[in-house]
């Protein structure tokens, strides 16, 4: 049942750089797939030769294995002029795809996991912010977040208090808006698109749309990759591996309001793939 729900979403299965190296053998929701280039005319099949629909968005190739797919979410900022789009490669993580998203929504870990970059002691306090399920769009949003960061972005010259907003448009995707050091009035966009290989392992594709015309492309992608590798050391050591939706199993505090909203939202839409539920 959880698989049925999940199968009707779209998922990233390749970017241009990986397809340029040749066909990609991969897995999505437990199904082995082969992705063949070129990137602008791709073909996605299973091992029996069945073809799946494809679309190219946000520098990634997306597919779905469901019979009745929901539309791929929109990121309107992707079309804003002046933003550089940076696909940051892929990171394989042995964790639930939902734990990977939840970690991305969490700021309280910055001083401990991304020490000296996204956070530093003694600046550990998470001030009250707003987290909600927006009924009109059926998405999770967290707003009014601010946090002190020693090196908020590749383009940041020193420590600043960064403003954050989060948006969860699909169970396995999250978009972060954060203060853009060179243009204080604008917000950088950083997203993660998670490809669930199974309920307990995933490929994570970070992607950015930035106002940074000075840092070179490889450095930008590497900055994001390094941060995600730090997250991986956490994600592969959480138990249970699947994300518990029963609020009694893990103890949240006020800093976890986004996580609480995310779990509640998953539960009410029945997005149980990668979740620990009464049914599983």
């Amino acid at each position, binding site marked *: 049942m959880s698989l049925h729900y999940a199968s009707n979403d779209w998922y990233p299965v390749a970017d241009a750089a990986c397809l340029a190296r040749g066909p990609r053998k991969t897995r999505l929701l437990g199904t082995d797939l082969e992705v063949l280039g070129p990137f602008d005319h791709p073909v996605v099949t299973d091992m029996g030769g069945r073809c799946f629909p494809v679309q190219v968005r946000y520098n990634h190739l997306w597919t779905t294995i469901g019979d009745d797919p929901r539309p791929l979410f929109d990121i309107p900022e992707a079309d804003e002029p002046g933003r550089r789009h940076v696909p940051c490669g892929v990171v394989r993580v042995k964790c639930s795809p939902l734990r990977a998203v939840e970690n991305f929504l969490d700021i309280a870990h910055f001083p401990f996991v991304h020490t000296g970059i996204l956070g530093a002691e003694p600046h550990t*306090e998470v001030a009250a912010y707003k987290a909600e399920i927006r009924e009109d769009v059926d998405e999770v949003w967290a707003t009014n977040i601010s946090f002190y960061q020693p090196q908020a972005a590749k383009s940041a010259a020193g420590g600043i208090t960064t403003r954050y907003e989060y948006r969860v448009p699909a169970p396995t995707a999250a978009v972060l808006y954060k203060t853009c050091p060179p243009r204080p009035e604008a917000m950088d966009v950083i997203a993660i698109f998670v490809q669930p290989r199974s309920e307990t392992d995933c490929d994570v594709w970070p992607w950015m749309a930035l106002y940074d015309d000075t840092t070179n492309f490889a450095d930008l992608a590497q900055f994001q990759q390094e941060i995600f590798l730090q997250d991986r050391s956490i994600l592969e050591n959480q138990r249970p591996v699947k994300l*518990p939706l029963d609020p009694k199993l893990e*103890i949240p505090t006020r800093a976890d309001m986004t996580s609480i909203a995310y779990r509640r939202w998953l539960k009410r839409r029945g997005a149980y793939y990668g979740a620990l539920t009464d049914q599983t």
Partner: protein
Amino acid sequence: MPSMPVGLSRDLPPKRVMRASVGGQDIVVWRASNGDIAAWDNRCPHRGMALSHGFVRGNALACLYHGWHYEQSGRCSYIPAHPDLDPPATIHTTRFGVTERDGVIWVDTTDTAKPGMLTEPLDPLRSLIAEVSEAAVEAACHSTPFEGEMPQPSGSGLYALGTIRLALLTNPLGPNRTQVTVLTSPGLSLQTRLALSRWCETLRRNAEATGTGGA
């Protein structure tokens, strides 16, 4: 589950954290700056992070993920995201029995830890892991000579290696994985202790070569 030997006291100095396992239960064992020891389920109650990746701050164990502090009693004493909050007493780790004797750390997941009684004073030599069953380790001990002579069983899990007395304490980690804690007669020379340590390596190799492991 009886109390099990999970390692040597000297391998866990103050401010150190180690991971252990008893009867399939994943465990964190750590020592505070003041020397106190604690053994808990290796899981942070906040978001399930393995506490064995944590670090000791003063007399508390801090979780690596969000830095929550847990005192030796298991109670959460500090949440860095809310520095002014006094954490509710309901936030605490799952505690296990732990005690130390003869330089060995004993853990019990169901009760107060009761160390295995040695019939004579012995010194800790080393702790090692063999990828075979407990029975295969014991079998190999009977057939691995030390300086040309076979160890002679002398009751209560003790062996005589010439004039040296030796105890093998085993903690089964799985059907083909065993933690072995080795103790010897006290007051041996460094040279003899090194020779015994090498004998332990040979014992492990023999056990792994002939044992039920790897099947």
